[in-house]
């Protein structure tokens, strides 16, 4: 390895631009410049120096800030593309996604779907982009923070003339009372909370060095944030499921290993009422017709006790009653149940009367529980109705056969066999909502529809997120880094005696005006002249 030995005796790593110790310009190209590039203190960014093995090449790729910026730009564009049309998870389940996009958005929709943008945020290339940003963050930071730390730690008080000359704030004064001037300036700088180091009569005042670590602290926060996001993929860390539950129903809560059960006692939807509620709502009610005020599920949480296997009548112990409202979830262990959706008036029971079609006389009522219909309903006196077939969600299939679309009683239909003293062999009648078919000719009797009983169904989100605190921690560290880098400045002021002259130079990573004011205050009353801002001088010359 070609290490560079400076004339001050300090040995610098290969690629160093400014000697870590005395600041002498080591690279020829840099010598031609009027002002130094002070980024990373002219330290050797390792990535830029070795390029040997495959590992080095990968490392150097990710170490480039330019690559990092491009990765962020591409990710931003990709993220924006994903918002043009709704993602697959948000489209209504009316038809397959492949058809839906073309149907709704024409050829653009088709292209969007074909390119896989309907699932953009979980696509492999999007994840790789995010992961690459993470890798870039780690490697960029490592490659810069270590040399920077070295350079700031190794810096000596007496900096080389070529270093001081090329600082943006620099000035030379010829004075006699040097010692006195130095003592005065030192006191003033101490008042301004500078750390003072002295060496051979030269002076370095420095403060706010920790502000230089701000960006790296910030990156550590981001990386923790990304790790939190990654942990969501680890089984058991993150749950996001939907539980549909009817009034009166008791269901096992998913992802709780069958430990917890929930009973929905009642679902309540309240709307604003002109009569009862404050009149400020009147206008909105007139405009919208109906405005929801509250969505609420009254539930009871049960915990299974004992070792009942799945399906066995579990011994349930009541944990608590709770009223779940929007943003007021039921919490237990690491789970939270949120109100997320509902369905009003799902059919629950239907009542019929066995009726003589001609006379209209009724021979008894029967009520069918759609979630537990019986085989037959005996109405007494030789009258009986038997259910031959039951279709909870009835439709005719392509062959014209009655079938059910699902197990949910959205559109119930029955095939009844009616037994009466007149027809002991029974008459067949197909009964659906607003529809009666008598497949074997005219019947004498019919099942007259009497009424329905409905139930509400509530949908709850079952949520568990053990990664939240990691993400919050990452966010907090991120903000600490931002504050550290933004609200503090790293300021350095050098005073050096050179052949009866006093050279003053200053450097800050931001807010040059503040630095100059402090130098001005420190030199006030001494015979040392205020140094000039060489950058300002240059631009004034040009202008």
């Amino acid at each position, binding site marked *: 390895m070609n290490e560079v030995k400076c004339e001050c005796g300090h040995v610098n790593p290969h690629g160093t631009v400014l000697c870590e110790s005395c600041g002498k310009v080591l690279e020829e190209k840099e010598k031609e410049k009027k002002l130094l590039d002070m980024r990373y203190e002219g330290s050797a960014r390792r990535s830029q120096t070795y390029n040997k093995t495959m590992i080095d090449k*990968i490392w150097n790729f990710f170490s480039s800030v330019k690559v990092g910026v491009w990765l962020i730009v591409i990710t931003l564009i990709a993220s924006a593309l994903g918002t043009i049309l709704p993602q697959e998870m948000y489209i209504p389940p009316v038809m397959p996604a492949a058809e839906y996009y073309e149907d709704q958005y024409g050829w653009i929709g088709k292209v969007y779907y074909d390119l896989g943008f309907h699932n953009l945020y979980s696509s492999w290339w999007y994840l790789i982009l995010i992961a690459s940003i993470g890798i870039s963050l780690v490697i960029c930071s490592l490659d810069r923070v270590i040399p920077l730390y070295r350079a700031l730690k190794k810096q000596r008080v007496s900096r080389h003339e070529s270093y001081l000359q090329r600082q943006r704030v620099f000035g030379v004064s010829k004075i006699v009372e040097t010692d006195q001037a130095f003592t005065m300036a030192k006191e003033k700088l101490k008042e301004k909370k500078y750390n003072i180091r002295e060496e051979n009569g030269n002076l370095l005042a420095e403060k706010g060095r920790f502000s230089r670590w701000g960006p790296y602290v910030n990156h550590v926060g981001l990386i923790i944030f990304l790790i939190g996001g*990654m942990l969501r993929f680890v089984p058991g860390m993150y749950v996001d499921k939907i539980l549909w539950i009817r009034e009166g129903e008791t269901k096992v809560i998913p992802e709780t290993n*069958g430990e917890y*059960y929930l009973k929905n006692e009642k679902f309540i939807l309240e709307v604003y009422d002109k009569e009862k509620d404050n009149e400020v709502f009147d206008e909105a009610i007139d405009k919208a017709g109906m405005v929801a005020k509250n969505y609420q599920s009254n539930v009871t949480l049960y915990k299974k006790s004992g070792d009942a*296997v*799945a399906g066995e009548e579990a011994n349930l112990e009541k944990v608590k009653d709770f009223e779940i409202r929007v943003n007021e979830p039921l919490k237990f262990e690491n789970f939270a149940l949120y109100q997320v959706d509902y369905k009003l008036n799902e059919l629950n029971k239907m009542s019929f009367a066995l009726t003589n079609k001609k006379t209209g006389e009724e021979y008894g009522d029967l009520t069918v529980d759609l979630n537990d*219909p019986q085989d037959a309903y005996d109405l007494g006196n030789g009258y009986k109705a038997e259910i*031959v077939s039951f279709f909870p969600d009835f439709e005719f299939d392509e062959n014209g056969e009655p079938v*059910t679309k699902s*197990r949910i009683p959205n559109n119930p239909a029955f095939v009844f066999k009616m037994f009466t003293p007149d027809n002991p062999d029974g008459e067949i009648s197909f009964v659906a909502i607003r529809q009666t078919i008598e497949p074997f000719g005219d019947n004498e009797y019919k099942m007259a529809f009497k009424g329905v009983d409905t139930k509400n169904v509530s949908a709850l989100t079952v949520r568990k997120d053990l990664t939240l605190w990691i993400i919050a921690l990452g966010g907090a560290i991120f903000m600490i880094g931002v504050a550290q880098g933004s609200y503090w400045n790293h300021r350095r002021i050098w005073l050096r005696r050179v052949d009866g002259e006093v050279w003053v130079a200053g450097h800050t990573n931001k807010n040059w005006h503040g630095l100059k004011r402090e130098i001005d205050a420190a030199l006030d009353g001494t015979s040392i002249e205020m140094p000039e801002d060489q950058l300002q001088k240059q631009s004034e010359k040009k202008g």
Partner: protein
Amino acid sequence: MKKQRLVIRTVILLVLGAAVAYTLYANFTKDQVQKVAVGEKAPDFVLTDLEGNKHRLSDYEGQGVFLNFWGTWCKPCEKEMPYMNNQYKEFKDQGVQVLAVNVGETDLAVNKFSDRYNLSFPIVIDKDGPVQSAYGINPLPATFLIDKDGKVVKYITGEMNEATIKDYMEQIKP
């Protein structure tokens, strides 16, 4: 020095690469993650059949169990039922039991269905869904092949024809 640098860089890149690979893998398998993995012991359960008899999975240890989850509205389930019925008759004396778990429909619907196809294997109803939850059932039909030691040999989702059903039963024959 140079060697040390290479080692450090390699280690860091490997750690980062492993994290990325895991995330990608987890993301693409998250929809296929089975609660009950092949090679694991099938979770025990007790359900009651249409005749009122209790069936406990662990009672069938020593026999192969063809565990099928189905619903009456599910067309492929409906199609494979008669095949299962035929093969059940072949294999029940050879130590293969069929358990058809309905995913919580009404007794009436299940009874009528069973009568229509003259199904002879026991049909149990998972009313509130605990068994489906334990097995992580989503699309229907879903079938688990369980061997004589109670271990899951294979998980099949989607329709099966008679030949594959026969083949599967052959696989779990004790």
